[in-house]
Structure formats: structure tokens, C-alpha cells
């Protein structure tokens, strides 16, 4: 579980060969079984890409021209519409709920994807509960059960440097902890900006 966490863009992202030199990858297939395989490949690619670049949120309009969706070598790109349907697939159960659409104010939206509302999404290369597991495992490993830790300490502190969750999005971190609270593994207290947590 302990992946090296390279700082964003320190090494160039290595695209898989099918992205690099297989043009049909950029056309969504009409055959359903092929399409499912294609969605899975795209899902994996997007998650890897986001992890590599430490992206927790993705804005379609701003990334559609990024190398993720556009291969200038091949002169191929995934159209905005197709990219949206890939993300939509990822948001569903069959896609493992790997993304979550949010509106400008950061509220979760659902329903049929629309151009105006469905532009930005969380990309869960780890879902909140998976993040929670990672954090809980780290706490256990370092023997800090029952110790009160501040959020800042956990996310930005020296002690977590090199951990996957170091420097992660505050909001996502909060959601990860809340899944632990729900499961009774942690307790959150304190006010806005100075929250602390205690693991059991």
C-alpha cells in the first residue's frame, strides 16, 4: 500500500501503448462487450493519470485538451461527449464509483449528466473509505492509537511525509475520516480550521 508519492509532474506520465498507438481507443465502440473493456481501460488510465499528477478533482473542459484525452501524435482525441460518458460510466456502480460529479459549489450532483452541471468531478483513485483504511493503517503502524492528532498534522505534517495521503485534498481527507467515524474507528472533534481526531 505504500506507494512512493512523487511530487506532481516530477516524472512524465507514461501512457500505455494502446493510448500511444492505437487509434480505435479514442472511438467509443458500439459493441457492448468491447465498450465495457474500453471503459475499464479508460477508467484505469484516468485514475493512474490523476494519481500521478495528484489530481483529486477533474474539470472536463480544462482537461479535455490535456494529453490524457488528446494524443497529438496520432491526431486523435476523445471527444468531450465521449469523455463525459466514460466518466459517467466510472461514476456508476459498474464502474466502481470511481468519480463523483460535483457542481461549482462543490456539492454532489446526480441524475443524468448534463453539460452545464456535469463538468467537474472527484476522481477517487481511492474512494473515501479506502483513504480511511490507509490512514487508519498508518496510525496503527506508527502506534498512535488513542493519540489526538490534528488534521494539519496528518495531511501536512512532517510525520506523514512520504505517505500516500500526505498533502491530500482537505475536503477529501475530511470525508475519509468521516467514513472512519461512521465505522467507529475514529472520533473527530474541535472547530473549523483546528479539528483534531483520535483513533481507536
Amino acid at each position, binding site marked *: *500500500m505504500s*506507494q512512493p508519492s512523487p511530487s506532481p509532474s516530477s516524472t512524465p506520465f507514461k501512457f*500505455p*501503448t*494502446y493510448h*500511444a*498507438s*492505437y*487509434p*480505435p*481507443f*479514442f*472511438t467509443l*465502440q*458500439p*459493441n457492448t*462487450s*468491447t465498450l465495457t*473493456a*474500453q471503459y*475499464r*481501460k479508460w*477508467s*484505469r488510465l484516468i*485514475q*493512474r493519470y490523476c*494519481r500521478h499528477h495528484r489530481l483529486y478533482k477533474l474539470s472536463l473542459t480544462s482537461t479535455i485538451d490535456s494529453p490524457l484525452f488528446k494524443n497529438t*501524435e*496520432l491526431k*486523435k482525441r476523445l471527444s468531450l461527449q465521449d469523455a463525459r460518458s466514460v466518466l459517467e460510466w466510472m461514476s456508476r*456502480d*459498474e*464502474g*466502481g*464509483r*470511481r468519480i463523483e460529479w460535483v457542481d461549482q459549489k462543490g456539492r454532489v450532483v446526480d441524475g443524468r449528466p448534463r453539460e452545464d452541471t456535469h463538468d467537474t468531478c472527484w476522481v477517487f*483513485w481511492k474512494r473515501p473509505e479506502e483513504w480511511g483504511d490507509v490512514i487508519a493503517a498508518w496510525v496503527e503502524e506508527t502506534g498512535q492509537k488513542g493519540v489526538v492528532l490534528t488534521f494539519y498534522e496528518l495531511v501536512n505534517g512532517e510525520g506523514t511525509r512520504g505517505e500516500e495521503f500526505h498533502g491530500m485534498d482537505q475536503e477529501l481527507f475530511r470525508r475519509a475520516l468521516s467514513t472512519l467515524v461512521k465505522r467507529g474507528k475514529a472520533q473527530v472533534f474541535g472547530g473549523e480550521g483546528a479539528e483534531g481526531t483520535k483513533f481507536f
Partner: protein
Amino acid sequence: MFFQPLDLTTALRPSLLPEEALLFVQDAVGLYEGKYKLPNHQNGHAYLTTHRVCYVDNLEPRKNSVAVELKTVDRYEFYVGFLKSSAKITLHPKAAKPSVTSSRNQSLISAQLAAPSPPRSSSTSPIHRGSSPFPNARSGTSTPRPSNATWVCTICSFSNPVPLNFDPATANSNMSLPPCLSCGIKPSFPHLLKAAISNAAGRRDSQSPNQAPQQPLLESHGQYDANSSSEYTRPSINDSSTPPAKSKFQCPRCTFLNHPSLLTCELCGAPLLFEESEAAVAIGESIGRPESPGPTMNGSNSGLDNDTECVKFSFRAGGEKIFYERLKGAMVQRKWLLQNAPPLPDSYQSSTSGQPNIVGPDGIIRPPTERERTVGIAALERQGLQLRKKNEAVIGSAFEDLDALMASAKEIIALAESFSKKSDDGSTETNQLIAESAKALDMVTTKDMLGSSAGSESLYLSEMSRNLAEYLTDDAKGILRKEGGIMSLVDLWAVFNRARGGVELISPMEFEKAARLWEKLKLPVRLRQFKNGLLVVQQADRTDDKTIAQLLAWLQELHHTPHSDNINWDYETFGRGVTAQETAQRFGWSVGVASEELEMAEEKGALCREEGVEGLRFWENWIVEMSDDDDVNDDGIDVEPVHTVEDMEQVQRNLEDMGLI
């Protein structure tokens, strides 16, 4: 000996000899040899050609199909059918003489040598037939002489004695017949013969019921045949209503026993044939009839090598009348004699010079060698002029009327072919048209060639279906091969109708119906429907899997042959995409067919598509097949679907609701 083995075409129709033409086809036909049904030959098609009468079995056409050459037929008889007995046409073989038999008929000769007595003499036939159920029928009784036979005068109904010197086996119509003793009118020969025979048969039956009335000549008389055969089987079919051995027929209305030759009941006037026609209709509806009046020969041999006295074609679904008429025509025309005959002498030959024209090897009718001593260009021009005139005359007279056309068909075809050869520099389309119209003269299935019975529509369709299959698989024409083994039904319809030369065109609806019959008739072509509704014609053995394999093999090839375009991807790994146009070019398909085949392959997951500015390209499907890059498979990324607790609970609830848990 009488039966010849029959070669079938790919469409399970008799393969015709050169010059042979199909005259008539009738389905639901059974075959008799002598008086006995031939096993395995009871449900088939009868094909009448100018040279042969063929029987093609419906169930096992390759095994049980036989033909009778018309040139070995001496006489043929027609029997209209009676009660349960269907109409029949009887063919009698010629008394075999070695000089008559062609080299093909070796078996015939040997059979004759084995049985030296001529088949028509009454002491032969059934005895020599090992397969006959009555092995020792009438040995010794060479010619039964009916001493007290009588015939009933058709005019005054007086019963006259049959003259003692009247022997049914040897009598012929040239004999002088004694007039009626009461009114003095001479009886007709068949009438007298019938009377004599029925007397003889009656007596014989009363003597020994096991003896079969086997006398080859007797069977040439349909009316008698009806009586004897029905009387023969009645005991087994319906014992309670068995009439006395003397053949009489019960009137269906008043139960009066009528004389068999009466068409209406003597007592109440009810038509006696009524029942028979009803039976015929019933038979037409279901060809596989459960019982038939004729006994079945239970020997296993089909009579191919056997000495046969006569062959009967039983028409269970009608069509016998037209068949008979056409048979009559064919027997009169004796087309088989023309097989090696020289072409018709042409009538336009030079009123100017007395020389016969010479038909050149290329079919052009050449003028006789020049008599005039002109030389140089003038001579050439004259020659050319004469040639043109001659050809003009040939064509002109050919179109005078249809008969003339048929008569000069050979020449016209030769001309058309030579024209098409000559005009090589001309447009190829014209060439093709001419060539095809020439070929069209042997395209045969037309409506008037088929029986007009109840099932004629389906017979027409099935015959056309076979015709089409033959046309498609004919190697000489190579229609399918030219189109890369697949062509759209519409194209085929156009080509086929054009090949018919503008006559007897087929309506699209019937054409489609006929094409849909291929599968049912187990013909070597098949009709396939693409998912957008396009109908195409293919060889039956050409399946989707084969097509896909073909496409994939080609795409594999492309891994090693870089495209001329500047390619900026790793073509050795993924190959490249192909367009429908390229595919059409590669396999000789039409573009429509190619794109349909590609989409079919895509549907099956073998290919996938790339939509781009240059159009649609198809690629090998690496999306499904290829695993994700090896180095990233253990990257901790999860793309599997989630199953939430609510989901599982929902499933659990559903199962409980259904009572499964």
C-alpha cells in the same frame, strides 16, 4: 436396364446433356417398376427433358435418382387414375437389340444376354426378377386362352364371345375384328382387348389368388391396370367391402356394383370418378400418403441393373396431363437424334451461287469460296459485303417468328458469341450483355413448364430456387466467384433477370421467396441477412467465422507491411485500420457488403472501429484482447464494479420475495 443412373447438379436437379432441354417438372411423383412400387422412389420430382425422363428423389436425391432415356422407350401410355389410384404414365422399353444400345448401356446388353427371351413375350418377366415378391408366378402358362370370354358391345350391350384366335399377347390393332353378333357394329380394338384380358385375369385369379397377373402387355392398357391393381390390393386394405374377384366398383352413392369401365353409376348416375378426384386433392395436400393401392416391391435393388418390363410414373399431385402432352411432343421430335447432327442447313444459301455456306469455327457463316475472279481490295470489299448480307439475313429471318428463332437458335448464339468476341474493343458491358443473352437460352424455369396443380406455386418457387442455385454455382459463369463469394440479393436479381434475356422476368417477391428456400432444400448457397436488413447470397459453407478469420488474417498481414502514409504509431504491434473500400478491393466484394461484413465482425468482437476525419476504419480488436500494460497491473488501481450492502440486501430481499430462500 431401363433405368440409367442420373447425374445431379449442385442444386439437385438432373444435369442436362448438351443440347438437352428441360420441358416439364412435376413434384409428388412416385415410381413403379412393372406393377410394383419401387421402395425409396415414392416421393420425388419428375423432370421431363427432350432426352430423358428423370426421377429425383426428395429424401435422398444423390442415392435414389434415376432416369429413363427416351430413346430406349418404345411406347408410352397414359392412365387417368381411378379412385385411390393416381394418374400414371407408363413407359415401355424397346425390345433390346444390341444395335440399339449405345455403349453406355452395357448393363442392358448383359441383362439381355442373361435373359435371352425378348421382354415382351409373356413367358419372361416376373420369373426372372429375383426381387419380385411372386417368384414363380405363371411358369408354363405361356398364353392362357380364354375359351368362354365375352365382350359387351358398346352399342347394343350384347355379350359376344371373344374370337378364339384373339390372343391378347400378340393381338394388334391391325387384326380384323368380328362384328357384334347382334347389331353388326365392329368393336374397337382396345375394347375387345380389355374384355379378353379381364376375362383372363379373372379366371386366373379365381384359380390361384397368389398369382400375380403379370403380363407386360396387359399393363399398357390403363383401364385394365386400374381394375387389376385396385382389385389386387383391396383385400389388404379393406376386407369388409371386398367386391367379388370380378372387378366391380361400388357406387359411392347407392352402393351398386358397376362395371369398371363405366364412368357414372348405372343405377343412380353418380359420377364414379368423383371419389378419385377427391382423393387426388387430398393427396395434393399431403404428399406423404399413408397408403396407396399399389403393392410395394420389397426387394432392395432399385432396378438399375434389372430387366424391367415397364416403368410407371405415378402423379400424386396432378400435372400428369401436361407431362403427357410434353412427353408426346418430345417423343415426336426425337431431339436425341440431333445430338450429333450437323447444324441446320441454312435456307438463305446463295440463290446466287449454288454453294452451301460454311459455318466457320467461330460461328460466322462464311460465304462460299469466291467464284468471281476479282482480286485486291474490291474482292475484299465484296467479301465483306456478302458476309454482312448473310448475317443480316440470318438475323432477319430469325426474328420473323418465334419458331424460326428456335430453329435458328444455334446459329444466332454462334453469331452473338462471335460478335461479342469481335467487339472486344467495344464496351465490356455490351459484350457481357450479348454473352449473357446467348447463355440465357438455356435458362429454363418458367411458369409454363410446371404443373398447374395445387402445389404449383411452391413447385415453381422450389424449381426456381434450384435454378438460381445452379446459376450461382455454375463454374463456367462464376457469378459468385466474380463477386468475391458474396453478392447482394438485389444485384443477383438484376443479373439473373438480365440473363433471362428480358422474357419471363421474375418478380422481386417471388425471387426473394425462392432464395429463402435454399436452406430448406439444402442447396449449396445460402441467403444471409445483415443486421441492417441487407440480404446477400453466399456459398453455404461460407460462415461468419470463416469471413472473420479471413479478415483477421489480412489484418495480421498488415502488421508487417507498413502503409505508404506517414504512420506515427507502432504498426508492428497493432497493425493498422482498414476502410470498407480497402476491404472491398481486397476481397472483391461490393462496398456495401464489405462494410456489412466488417460490422458483423465488429459485432462478434473481432474488430473495433476508429472514427476519424478520413472516415471509418476497422482494426483488430486489441481493446478486449490485450491485457493492460504489464507494468501497471499491480498499480493498486481498481476498476471493478462495487456491490454495496444495499445492493446485496436488495438481492436478498428479491430472492426471498420469489420464495427461493
